[in-house]
């Protein structure tokens, strides 16, 4: 009797291998209802073994009984068996899509493990089930904030404020975190103050507030918050990590490392987690202990992959790129229409590049210009590739769905996609009347450069180029999920990078693009000329203030934020030389692109 690998305790055929057709009709298992009631009762009274036994018995006979599924879900979740818990709660939702509590639980679980797209799907269902329920909107607020759509998240948080009729301190702190992510630091600070005044002992609130102060370069204020927390919650892992980050930013590397050592000692297994290891690696890097730093980075990556279960989606990436190559050919493109250009709204500037190639630096520079708004990493192009078949009424996926543009009723299809994008941007609310442009710096949008050029044929495409080995050093020292989780290992990061660069080469050979490669190294060595070149390319006048991008008070949400708040230093160029031996395995993979870009390996 094989038990389900998810760990639920049920047989596979009664759990993840359940066939809907094998579920008996509800009427035939009516006699089990009293058992479910006893299970609920036992669980409430803390008799977990009894509750568990009853649930397993009931679910063996009637695997769709929601009460038993819910109780077993709670037991497994308490035990930390998250895969089992998720499978059980998901089954409740599948059998009863209008079950709000279960939908809420599932969305929270998914958000907790970073499956934001899936979480968003269920959060939206929660709003559909209960449009006036504050928790439904709270879910959307949390998930959209985490999914880097803070403007949408803000709407839902404010909806909660309206519906709940009060100013719940936790909600205020959540909204504050959201606003911090939009760079609206003063508003965020005021909300943290209000929240902390109403509920001074909430750990998450204080931690978020400390992080706000750190991100806003109010290091003393951040330290003061952390001191207070330390007194109240000594040895709290979150506080210790924030302390280490703060000490690192203020260049107290030894002390920061010591804090991380404390953190390791305090953890049950004596080891650091992925985020802590990354921070440790960065500190060691700053201290010139490169070999130690690399060991920390590599272990961080290994652990993150192990914990999340995320690995590079090799075949999916290969398939998408092969299809894009095949579809976007000069011959086919000559037969496709292009979207027109809207004169009534600000226009996008796409800042393209591999994660950690310098896109944040370029965006901070551009958006220091008074006529350019910062859009940050907009997920909209990827969204469009998902909704395109529906919008173009196509049976095909992206990019083949663009074949619908040959149909008489879809000639304006690209205009519709363009308007969808622009409307979403408008909803985000970051564009002001003075702005003629806004940036979209979603990394790896270059994978969709063909689509972008069809939707926005006049949009400047600024592709940030950097020595591929430097990108690899950054990729190994930071966590990001872009590029089908390619950065979970050095080799897969290199492979995905080469795939995307080959695709960029293809697009550029097949299409007339408004494309400008900007070298990160030129931004360091020849900043003014490079920045002037970018503004010439865009068609905007040069503003000397853009050279002092580090004074741009806007907070960049991405991992680069700490670097872009400092002036340019040459030390970020050719950083790979310090890690040369560790990068040896990926040099043969990257060699063709290194040569194509005109770099060498020294």
């Amino acid at each position, binding site marked *: 009797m094989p038990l389900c690998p998810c760990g639920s305790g049920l047989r596979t055929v009664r759990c993840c291998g359940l066939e809907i057709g094998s579920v008996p009709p509800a009427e035939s298992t009516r006699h089990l209802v009293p058992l479910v009631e006893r299970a609920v009762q036992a669980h409430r009274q803390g008799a977990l073994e009894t509750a568990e036994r009853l649930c397993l018995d009931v679910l063996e006979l009637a695997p769709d009984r929601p009460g038993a599924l819910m109780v077993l879900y709670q037991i497994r979740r308490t035990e930390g068996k998250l895969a089992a818990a998720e499978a059980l709660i998901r089954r409740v939702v599948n059998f009863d899509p209008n079950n709000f509590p279960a939908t809420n639980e599932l969305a929270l679980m998914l958000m907790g493990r970073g499956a934001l797209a899936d979480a968003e799907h269920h959060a939206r269902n929660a709003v559909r089930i209960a449009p006036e329920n504050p928790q439904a909107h709270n879910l959307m607020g949390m998930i959209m904030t985490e999914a880097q759509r803070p403007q949408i998240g803000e709407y839902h948080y404010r909806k909660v404020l309206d519906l709940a009729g009060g100013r719940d301190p936790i909600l205020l702190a959540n909204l504050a975190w959201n606003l911090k992510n939009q760079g609206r630091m003063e508003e965020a600070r005021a909300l943290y103050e209000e929240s902390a005044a109403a509920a001074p002992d909430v750990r998450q609130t204080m931690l978020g507030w400390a992080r706000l102060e750190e991100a806003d370069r109010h290091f003393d204020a951040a330290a003061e918050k952390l001191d207070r927390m330390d007194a109240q919650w000594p040895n709290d892992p979150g506080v210790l990590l924030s302390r280490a980050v703060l000490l690192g930013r203020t260049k107290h590397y030894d002390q920061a490392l010591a804090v991380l050592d404390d953190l390791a000692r305090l953890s049950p297994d004596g080891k650091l987690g992925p985020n802590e290891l990354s921070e440790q690696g960065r500190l060691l890097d700053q201290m010139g202990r490169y070999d130690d730093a690399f060991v920390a980075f590599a272990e961080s990556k290994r652990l993150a992959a192990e914990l999340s279960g995320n690995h590079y989606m090799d075949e999916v990436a290969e398939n998408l790129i092969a299809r894009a190559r095949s579809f976007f050919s000069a011959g086919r493109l000559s037969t496709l229409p292009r979207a027109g250009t809207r004169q009534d709204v600000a226009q996008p500037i796409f800042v393209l590049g591999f994660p950690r190639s310098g896109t944040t630096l370029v965006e901070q520079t551009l958006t220091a210009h008074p006529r350019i708004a910062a859009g940050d990493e907009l997920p909209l192009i990827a969204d469009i590739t998902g909704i395109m078949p529906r919008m173009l009424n196509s049976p095909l996926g992206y990019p083949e769905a663009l074949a619908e543009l040959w149909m008489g009723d879809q000639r304006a299809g690209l205009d519709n996609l363009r308007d969808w994008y622009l409307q979403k941007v408008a909803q985000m609310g970051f564009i002001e009347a003075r702005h003629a442009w806004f940036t979209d710096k979603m990394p790896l949008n270059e994978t969709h450069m063909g689509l972008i050029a069809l939707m926005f044929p006049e949009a400047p495409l600024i592709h940030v180029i950097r020595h591929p080995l430097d990108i690899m050093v950054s990729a190994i020292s930071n966590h990001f999920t872009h590029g089908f989780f390619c950065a979970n290992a050095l080799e897969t990061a290199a492979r995905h990078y080469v795939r995307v660069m080959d695709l960029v080469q293809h697009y550029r050979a097949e299409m007339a693009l*408004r494309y400008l490669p900007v070298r990160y190294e030129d931004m360091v060595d020849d900043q003014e000329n490079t920045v002037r070149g970018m503004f010439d390319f865009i068609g905007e006048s040069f503003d000397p203030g853009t050279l002092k991008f580090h004074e741009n008070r806007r907070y960049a949400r991405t991992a680069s934020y700490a670097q872009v708040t400092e002036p340019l230093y040459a030390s970020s160029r050719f950083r790979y030389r310090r890690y040369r031996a560790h990068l040896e395995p990926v040099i043969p993979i990257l060699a063709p692109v290194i040569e194509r870009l005109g770099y060498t390996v020294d």
Partner: protein
Amino acid sequence: MEPVPPPRASLATSVPVPLEEVFTIAADYERSGKLAEADRLLGYILTVAPLQADSLHLAGIVAFRLGRHAEALERMELAIRHGVDTPLYLRNICEVYRTLGRLDEALATARRAVELSPSDPLCLHNLAIIHYERLEIDESIACAEQALAMNPTLPGAHFELAEALLLKGEMARGWDEYEWRFQIAGAAPLMPPTDKPQWDGTPFDDATLLLIADQGFGDVIQFCRYIPWVAERCPNLAIACAPEVGSLLRQLHPTLRTFVKWEDCPPYRAFAALSGLPRLHGTRLHNVPAPVPYLRADLARTKHWKDRLDRLAPPTYRRIGVVWAGRPTHNNDRRRSTTLAAFAPIAALPRVALVSLQKGPSADQAGRYYGRAPLINIGAEIKDYDDTMALLECLDVVVTVDTSVGHLTAAMGKPAWIMLATAPDWRWLLDRADSPWYPTVRLFRQSVAGQWGDVMSCVAGALRERFEAPTTE
């Protein structure tokens, strides 16, 4: 080790074929263009007899024709070592050396072939070619003349002489010699067999004169300037041409009829190749007709492309049209073409945008360009010469190797900066930066064979001067 099974002449026989016979079959294959088959058979022979000189030599020729130049050279050098100064080997290896740009070795070998076989006009013809390539034009003429003294009907030598004379600007004799071009072995015939005469320049207005837009597109653009001159003598004109140049040619004469299939051609009294018109016209250096612009862009298309370029290129930047490679099947393409990467000195100029007009297999280099100046790969959207002409109207200057785009730009009276290999095509003459054929052409000549770096630097310097100077045009 198992012996290599010998090839069989046909499936019907199972008797091993003697090597000599295999060689004969291989040679037949080579002559008939079945190179892969020849390669296979020669590979077999050389497995059995690795130093057999004739086979090494033929294998070298086959490898050369298959584009495996290094292997060709290796085999032919081995053949020479084991064939003891066979003039044929020396003559043929010359071409390999020439193709690879190893002109000193080519010259020494060609001379040795002449020494060994002083009465062979082909060896002298070969030497004439090497001298032309080395820009030793008088020596080239002398060799070609010696070859013709031995065999006055040797078309290749006549053609080589024509090219050398024309390059020196000696057009009277040059055009006459140039008429031999259709007699060269393997040259594409001008037209299907006909009983009609070649036009001799005599006017007539009661019948059709059939012109033929022969040779490459650059030649067509260069020589189509004579169409109005022809039309004054024979107003009923039809022209057989490739479809790509039809609309362009119709600009030259309002009632010109163009045909792309021989069977559609109307009855005619006489015919003339466009490339033969300079001879009939009596063109000399002092009277080259250069009525630029003699080709013009369509206004509506120009507006379309101007709008398109305005959207793609920085508004305040100078726009430089660039072409880095010609048609790869051109017999001189290896020398005349360069790479986009070689344009680096131009791409480093401030406030310029490169507009690629490149078509063909080399166009994909646009995808590998990471220079500082923005590159607009408009070539990906160009459909025909009408598009190209419209785009040329929107550019400040065109920098190109010796291609049809250079001719087109110049025919439109636009600034065309043409970069030439050390031994250029005859039409660009010697040692001058201008051209009597095109008043707006500026020539940049390679000083070292195969090296474009200096040329590009010169062009970049000249562009800088041009853009920094007050605008007068």
